């Protein structure tokens, strides 16, 4: 997995695996983005593998935005992420859109 961040803009871009093995590093990046003024812009277009831990992290980001009143915007999403959400019984539309 690679993570590209542009923290002033609040952008976190995940490429490759987005599983329990990567969630700790991604959480750090997301927390840093929320610390900024803009909130978090998440780019999941390059994710090739996603599991329930990855889905949980996205849910947590959604809840963080709701709690802090900051922006959470998913600018791209791959099929792997959508399938992972559907796999655990979540509607991707509900999670990815405010």
């Amino acid at each position, binding site marked *: 997995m690679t993570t590209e961040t542009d923290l002033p803009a609040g952008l976190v871009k995940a490429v490759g695996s987005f599983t*329990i093995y990567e969630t700790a590093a*991604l*959480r750090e990046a997301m927390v840093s983005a929320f610390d900024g003024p803009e909130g978090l812009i998440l780019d999941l277009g390059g994710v090739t593998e996603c599991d*329930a831990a990855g889905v*949980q992290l996205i849910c*947590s980001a959604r*809840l963080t935005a709701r709690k802090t009143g900051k922006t959470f915007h998913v600018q791209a999403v791959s099929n792997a992420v959508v399938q992972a959400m559907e*796999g*655990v*019984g979540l509607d991707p539309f509900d999670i990815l859109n405010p």
Partner: protein
Amino acid sequence: MDNHKMVYREEAFELLVDLETALLELEETPEDEELIGRVFRSLHTIKGSGAMFGYEDVAAFTHEIEAVYEQVRDGRLTVARDLVSLSLSACDLIRKMVAEEDLDTTHAAEMMGRFREFLPEGAATDRPGDAAAPFTPLRTRTYRIRFHPHPGLFAAGANPALIIDEIRGLGDCEVVAHFQDVPPLDELDPEACRLSWDLILQTDRGENAIRDAFIFVADTSDLEIQAMDAGPNPKDGPTDFRRIGEILLERGDITPEALDDALSEQARELAVDRRAERRISEIGVVSSIRVPADKLDTLVNLVGELVTVQANLSRKGGMSDDPELLAISEEVERLITSLRENAMSLRMLPIGSTFQKFRRLVRDLAEELGKEAAMTTSGADTELDKTVIDQLNDPLVHIIRNEIDHGIEPPHVREALGKPRQGTIHLSAAHSGAKVLIRISGDGAGLDTDAIRARAIERNLIPPDMELEEDELHNLIFSPGFSTAKRVTDVSGRGVGMDVVKRRIEALHGKVEIESRRGQGAAITLSLPLTLAIIDGLLVRIGTTHFVLPLSAVEECLELNREEANQSRDRGMMRYRDRMIIYLGLREFFGIDGEPPAIERVVVSDIGGEKIGFGLDQVIGHHQTVIKPLGRIYRDIQGVSGATILGDGSVSLILDVHQIFQSMEGQGGKEDSAEKH
């Protein structure tokens, strides 16, 4: 090999032992639902994990057996002896598959065919991964499944998506995922699972099929399954409330979260209980961990090093006038003694699992020989060092084989003698001081002393006119090459068994004793040290070199003057009490230079009933010996089984008196090859 595969292998071998035990018990009580469940769960786990770790052949083969036991579990098939026999053979095959040995695929296919014969006409099984097809569909019912994983679910490697997918495969399924317990990012432990699920499933596959899907997460989640059209579950509080809640949910009037909150409110008291249960189960999860044996060996070796350093420190402390140093050295000694006891206890295993393996052996051998025999055990939780347990397997196999082959009479003979048709082999284990006594007793015919005597004379083991006590006659069965079997059978081998048993047990610094009552049965007692990592030794010296002789091999210490010693050296024999015994000068054996002392010491050992005197310079005394293995280069050195480090830091070799004796007699190669037959 990859670590995960190795863990799977170890677990699969353990599961197979458990499966065999359950099958053998099931043969006795075929209606026992708990046993049926145990068999099914073992098969399901072997299959599921097999597929997960790339053992497709294991998964496919086990799936066929599982389908048959699904019939048993659902009450459509009764367990009979033929199914148990076939299942036990299947265990052997699975074991080979897991060990990745070469397989006879025709045999495997034939066995699968025989399992299919137990299935109803026209029934077929799906490939593993899918659940087995229903042969007689059950009534379609609606189930509500509440799946609340523990936080450790992800870390345990479980993937809830796969479980949900398996449930979806059982019928019409609606999944409601709850993420209200997921905290914001700054509070989230990303590896802890905070998601939970409610699933509404319509299926004709029954509750067991649903539970099977959760079999791998049973320890890391709370699961409630309730048939919606069944009676009310008192745990869920008033029935009407539950129904209204679900109606509202279906109509979309309330969100699943709101329903869950309301139900939680109702079940608040129960939630407390549940949390307590969860805590207990979490404690259970972490109460044992799997550690590779070589790591424990390293730990014990390091503790051994510490013991040596501590001995050195105590020596220095004792010599010094510094009371502070002495106090420190005593404290270190106390701690290290405690550490050593703890480290040794880590390698201790209950002997029960070894005993269980023999149930199968008893059953198969008895069947092969047309006899009836059952095995009973006691003291299965007696603990022994893993190394001892590992090396105990072959001797026990030999003893049990001999007891069934020569001891237990055929059923009609037993009946004629007024005994039960079925013979009993009893394995027991018990602690006795620093020893463990393992006793193998059978209610068979006992030893035939006349036959033993005749055989011993025929084999020139004793002169024809020699008078022997009964126990001396019994002990003749441990002589090399002795066999009273009138015919050579595959079971008892070719008469190499019992002498090999004795040698093996003696190599473990143990002893073998036999008791027998003609017509009533025989018992063999193995007396073994608790551990092989530390032994009681006798420290001796030749020139400037120190050696340790295992105390278990020492019978007596004697002195020889120069003249007697020279005579003994020349003849290779020495006088011991009123007879001549073999003499071996260890100075010559190890090629140590220098003159022997005027008074030479001799340590007399008993090796398989043969006395041998080892000549040396000085007997220093008792020594608690921490055994250090020899390096690869020294492994093949004759007469030495290991090394130990003395208090002053010097190295001392531990003598293997059996090997020295063998190399003297030139029997080493011969006996080794006989043992392999």
